[in-house]
């Protein structure tokens, strides 16, 4: 009850600049959260804090480096050492691309399980949306279109078999390749 009364008072009297909102943002995503933390430190000129924020995702970076992008950890360290914002941004985007590749390749292994494949592709789209602002328009739209094709290629079991569409592994692989090509440019 006290909490509700507090909330009512807050709703009336708390003022301030409303922050932006993004439906894709909820749910903990270490890479995306770390990107904000790193940039917050970089913007303040505190590169030690940036390294500290990057250390929070060392496990993710090690995993992605081992399986998806062999030079990733090294590039990340060099970027932080360079203290150059653009280089750091490029390294973070490289990590995000590796994360997208990870989800899409896991999707390829799960094409027989529609639900899992769909969640993986949609999840990769969340990472893409988070970095889409860093991409030139044509590149962004090409990757977006290829992601849509990947989603189409996982098929659809339909409802009680109505509208059923089988997965198309070849189309899926081609779409994934196109996504990664568009992001690599």
């Amino acid at each position, binding site marked *: 009850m006290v909490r509700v009364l507090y909330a009512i008072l807050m709703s009336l009297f708390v003022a301030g600049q409303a922050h*932006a909102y993004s439906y*894709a943002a909820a749910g903990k995503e270490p890479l995306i959260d770390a990107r904000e933390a790193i940039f917050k430190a970089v913007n303040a000129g505190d590169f030690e804090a940036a390294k500290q924020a990057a250390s929070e995702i060392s496990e993710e970076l090690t995993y992605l480096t081992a399986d998806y992008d062999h030079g990733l950890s090294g590039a990340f360290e060099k970027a932080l050492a360079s203290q150059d*914002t653009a280089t750091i*941004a490029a390294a973070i985007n490289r990590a995000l691309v590796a994360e997208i590749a990870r989800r899409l390749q896991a999707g390829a292994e799960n094409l027989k399980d*529609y639900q899992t494949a769909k969640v993986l592709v*949609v999840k990769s789209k969340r990472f893409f949306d988070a970095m889409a602002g860093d991409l030139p*328009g044509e590149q962004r739209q090409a990757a977006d279109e290829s992601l849509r094709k990947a989603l189409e290629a996982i098929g659809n079991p339909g409802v009680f078999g109505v509208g059923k569409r089988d997965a198309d592994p070849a189309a899926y692989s081609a779409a994934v390749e196109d996504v990664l090509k568009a992001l690599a440019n």
Partner: protein
Amino acid sequence: MLRFGWGTALFCYAVLSIWLLRHTPSIPSDDAYFFVNGTLRFSVLEFRPHFPGYPGFILLSKLLVLMGLSAKQAVFYLSLFSALFLPPLAAWTAKAWGASHTSTLLAFFAVLTQPFLPLVGLSMMSDATGIAFFLIALAFMGRGKHTRAGCFAGFALACRPSFIAPIALALLFEWYLKKDARLKLLIAGTGTLLVFFGGVFLLEGKAYLIEALRFTEGHFSVWGNTSFEQTLERDSWLDALAKEPVAFASLILLTLMTALAVPTRPKLTPLLIAATTAVLWTLLAQNPENLRHVLLPAILLVIWLVSLSQRPITLSLLTISILQLGLWSQLLSQTPTISPLAQATHYLSTQSFSLLVTNRGVYYLREQLSQYRILDMYYADNVEAQVSALGEYQIWKLSTSASENRWCGNQNMFEGRVFGERKLYILGLCSRRGSD
């Protein structure tokens, strides 16, 4: 006298309908864009539309597409005609709850002149459709037709799930009051909900439940701008009042009148429960940035007040309605145009700017403006870093503020079409660093 009153009210109704129908369908927000996408292909996980999927609204817009409309037209006209149905539905509901002939007319007129009715009508959102079904449910409840009331309450929630609190409490109170109606309400209400949301679950699978958790948590803690967020950085309803004081005055007066009237008629009814819950729910759980949320409590308060058929209340409501009608002079003098977001998109598409920063219509703009890099202000530190690093770029911001720290206004302002629709401005970057 009554005939003259209805003649005047219907004339005003025709004027507003014609003015609203002269607008061309145009996307005002990302949410509306998601509804259009959802009408083309439904997939909650892909935000087509976002959770919970609004299956009732999407089904109706898909029916309009089958009748030959484009997806954009379908969503636009569904929203618009739903809003135009609200005055007659409010009159019908008031009548069902015992309003006199005069009070029924007053319900029609007071809802017709609601300052945010045009905003809801042009919003391409499901609010008006949800309110319309809720009013039908309340009308059937007032007439003792509980099966139909349950069904329409289910339809209302399938169109506008965020009305859960007022709808559920009104149903529960009716359940408490009328033992013989319990089974009918339960079967009709839950049956309708099961058909719609069971259908969504069949389409989306277990991922729908995961998205439900993620989205609900996000609404209350990340982006919903609700009172439950543990942050001081949010717009309050007082800020909303400061932005639209005249349009808000009627809601404040309605709330005050209700507060004064309740002691004289202390009998709790599902209608009063729905109205008070809608006021509290809007205060607590709705985003003060979106003034369309105000329409549901305003309409329910009007219906409850007129159902009392007390002379002082009738006279006060008539005065408020006439004052509200006075606001139309500002509204109807404007030439119908497209939404501020669509105007801004059109302007930007003719420019050679290269980078845009915004938190308005990010998905829509990214789809429409292939020549731009579009940074999402939600990721504020990323934006700050990019803006500082990209020295050679010409950087612009699409904002609801005329000027901000480090962003200078220019001459590009895109007017809102109706009360409560925010103007948009294109601002230029004055300095690369926030502290400059």
